């Protein structure tokens, strides 16, 4: 009978162990395992009350994983040196009696409440994981050795399960920590990517701030930047911060300290720093944003969040924030440099765009890498036709310019040439060209700069006007466009006509070559005098010269200069005749007439043939006076006489009848000794 009972008992225990295996396999959390195991344990040993406690080394606490017959649920403080006391019973169990005086406090209360008899320490190697506590058996029977054995077997399995769950929990925790580290690394990586992609200072600042707030679980943050020429620190960007109008001075001791130690600072409620007062926050972490030795600003974050409230930032947080700020500093510095360079480039481009000189830059390979608007206008090409092309291709028709560029390339010094024909554009185009090496800050040559000044129009004006006016007048006109009015206008001028007397009949006895050489010699001498007194050569008609004083540029002494010109012309003719007589050429003589009055001046003619000239009665009277003048005579009108009588000797002649005038006009003859 006893053997049968023992067999039954054995079978019962085996069934319990089998059930235990199922519990351990099926349950997926330590709490549910413990609940199942406790129920099974109590059923196996026929006890009504019991509990499984989990021991937490950190905090030296016990928590109740599963309990039957125990009201308490909250964690309880463990007796002093629980682990050490239990170690003595590592391979056995503790029978709870009055000898266990080390069991004190809340654990003792629980044991009394459970009426516990047996306590099995759950050890994995030397590490206490928990306690299995079993109450008294039904009917107050004592525990048999078989029951103690089965309790220990169950406890061993429970220990293994708890250890496994702890391992899993640790792995989960480590996984979570690794994920957070990964997130930190990703954030650092993202910021390093942003360095190369985001070049807007504000946008970048915001990006770094957002990332920092998120990764450090801060509740809010702001990036403070020094205001230019001021000790004030301004929020460059802020996150989750309602009132950013707080006046923060860079002179606050905390910023001075950060500058000195070149590192960030953590503030806790105990610090009572003035910045905490200003911001109305107790938990603050600040890191400098430093590029080399220059502090660009400060990152200020507040309140490290947890599920249970706010806690102090740690050194690890500060290390991470410092790393983010260091990355950010590089990015911000790059962005600032880019902004400066862009502004400088825009400034340079606006200067280059506004000047009239064409500026073309060549890279070290000789290809055009930039050209300003004036350059495109001068070359009559757009940027597509120029950028990227080699200068040899661009200036292939202008070997002189190519030579100039090549000289600069070889000698690395500036070469200039003026009045160069510019066949790239047209046969008529004339340019001044200057080629200089492009030297980088390190002193290395990085290509060339070609400056082209289009002087085609200037050259045209000079070439055109220099035939009619003196160089001095041309220069004056070119220097001051306001003086040049080539449109039609009424103006007061003095007109001088000169005409060789009897030249037509004289030339009949001369060879054509002699006629031409005579006229060329005569006109050359006369025009030199005209230009000497800044007269404008209006026309040469046969042997007649028409000179204007007062157009296109007027002066107070226009009439006096005309008179002086006339006197000098007559003197030169006398000198010329002496040479002619020596050469046995027929002497020549000229009559000159001068008038002053209102004319219409301007470019007059057809679209194909247009000349700057003057027309009107004043001109006609000048011509009539010239006709009336005898050989060597200078006849002037009353108007000329009035202006110059003080400086010249005149003889008043009989008034003459002039075509188109009702009344005779007054005539005066200059008494000269030419």
């Amino acid at each position, binding site marked *: 009978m006893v053997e049968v009972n023992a067999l039954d008992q054995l079978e019962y225990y085996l069934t319990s162990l089998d059930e235990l295996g199922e519990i351990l396999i099926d349950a997926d959390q330590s709490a549910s395992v413990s609940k199942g195991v406790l129920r099974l344990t109590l059923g196996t040993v026929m006890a009504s009350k019991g509990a499984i406690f989990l021991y937490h080394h950190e905090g030296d606490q016990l928590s109740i994983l599963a309990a039957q017959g125990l009201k308490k649920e909250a964690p309880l403080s463990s007796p002093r040196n629980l682990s050490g006391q239990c170690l003595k019973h590592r391979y056995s169990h503790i029978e709870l009696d009055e000898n266990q005086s080390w069991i004190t406090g809340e654990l003792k209360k629980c044991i009394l409440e459970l009426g516990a008899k047996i306590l099995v320490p759950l050890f994995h190697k030397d590490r206490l994981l928990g306690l299995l506590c079993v109450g008294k058996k039904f009917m107050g029977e004592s525990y048999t050795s078989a029951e103690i054995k089965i309790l220990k077997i169950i406890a061993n399995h429970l220990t293994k399960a708890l250890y496994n769950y702890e391992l899993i929990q640790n792995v989960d925790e480590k*996984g979570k920590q690794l*994920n*957070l580290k*990964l*997130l930190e690394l*990703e954030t650092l990586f*993202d910021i390093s990517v942003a360095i190369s992609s985001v070049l807007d200072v504000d946008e970048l600042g915001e990006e770094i701030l*957002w*990332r920092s*707030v*998120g*990764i*450090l*679980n*801060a*509740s*809010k943050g702001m990036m403070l930047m020094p205001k230019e020429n001021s000790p004030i620190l301004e929020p460059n960007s802020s*996150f*989750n*911060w*309602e009132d950013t109008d707080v006046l923060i001075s860079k002179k606050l001791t905390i910023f001075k300290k950060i500058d000195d130690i070149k590192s960030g600072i953590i503030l806790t409620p105990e610090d009572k720093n003035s910045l905490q007062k200003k911001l109305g926050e107790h938990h603050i972490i600040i890191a400098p944003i430093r590029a080399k030795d220059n502090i660009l600003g400060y990152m200020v974050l507040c309140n490290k*969040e*947890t*599920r249970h409230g706010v806690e102090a930032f740690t050194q690890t947080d500060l290390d991470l924030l410092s790393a983010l700020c260091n990355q950010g500093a590089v990015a911000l510095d790059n962005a600032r440099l880019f902004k400066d360079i862009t502004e400088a480039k825009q400034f340079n481009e606006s200067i280059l765009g506004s000047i009239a000189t064409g500026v073309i830059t060549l890279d070290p390979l000789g290809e055009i890498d930039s050209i300003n608007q004036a350059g495109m206008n001068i070359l009559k090409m757009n940027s597509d036709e120029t950028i990227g092309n080699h200068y040899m291709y661009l200036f292939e028709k202008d070997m002189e310019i190519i030579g100039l560029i090549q000289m600069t390339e070889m000698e690395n010094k500036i070469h200039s040439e003026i009045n160069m024909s510019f066949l790239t554009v047209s046969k008529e185009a004339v340019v001044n060209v200057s080629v200089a090496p492009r030297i980088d800050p390190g002193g290395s040559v990085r290509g060339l700069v070609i400056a082209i000044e289009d002087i085609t129009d200037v050259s045209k004006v000079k070439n055109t006007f220099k035939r009619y006016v003196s160089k001095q007048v041309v220069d004056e006109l070119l220097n001051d466009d306001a003086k040049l009015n080539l449109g039609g206008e009424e103006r007061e001028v003095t007109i001088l006509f000169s005409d060789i007397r009897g030249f037509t009949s004289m030339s009949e006895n001369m060879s054509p070559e002699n006629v031409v050489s005579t006229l060329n010699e005569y006109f050359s001498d006369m025009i030199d005098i005209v230009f000497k007194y800044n007269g404008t050569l209006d026309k040469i008609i046969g042997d007649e010269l028409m000179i204007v004083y007062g157009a296109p540029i007027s002066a107070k002494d226009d009439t006096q200069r005309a008179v002086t010109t006339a006197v000098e012309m007559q003197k030169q003719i006398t000198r010329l005749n002496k040479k002619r007589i020596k050469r046995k050429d027929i002497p020549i003589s000229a009559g000159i007439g001068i008038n002053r009055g209102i004319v219409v001046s301007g470019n007059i003619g057809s679209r194909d043939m247009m000349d700057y000239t003057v027309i009107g009665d004043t001109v006609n009277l000048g011509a009539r006076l010239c006709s009336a003048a005898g050989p060597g005579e200078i006849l002037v009108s009353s108007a000329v006489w009035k202006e110059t009588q003080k400086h010249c000797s005149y003889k008043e002649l009989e008034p003459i009848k002039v075509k188109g005038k009702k009344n005779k006009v007054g005539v005066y003859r200059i008494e000269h000794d030419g």
Partner: protein
Amino acid sequence: MSDFSLSVREEGNTVIIETTGYLNNVGGEKVSEACYEKMDDGKKHFLLDLENSKVVNSIGVSILIEIIEKLQDVDGKLGYYNLAPIVEKTFNIMGLTKYSTVYYSEAEGLEGMA
């Protein structure tokens, strides 16, 4: 950006919660409150429009995990759309996307919830 706010609406059986602001402890709690209130009414499908929540911290993520756990108990689903790249990356790294789904539009989200 400051102050967290949200609006809740329903499209069929799906509850759409549009958030504005930092999804941290405060923001996360407000989202969970809104979700649990609707779960009490029998709702199981939730979509979060995070267009105006550009920053999420790990506390916000842990609250979302709690919401997912509670939804799993009732065979519910949580999804998101209009995520900023940084938020999507955080969700991926923190393992949130294993148990919930990122959609690229409300329409796609509603289709996924059906």
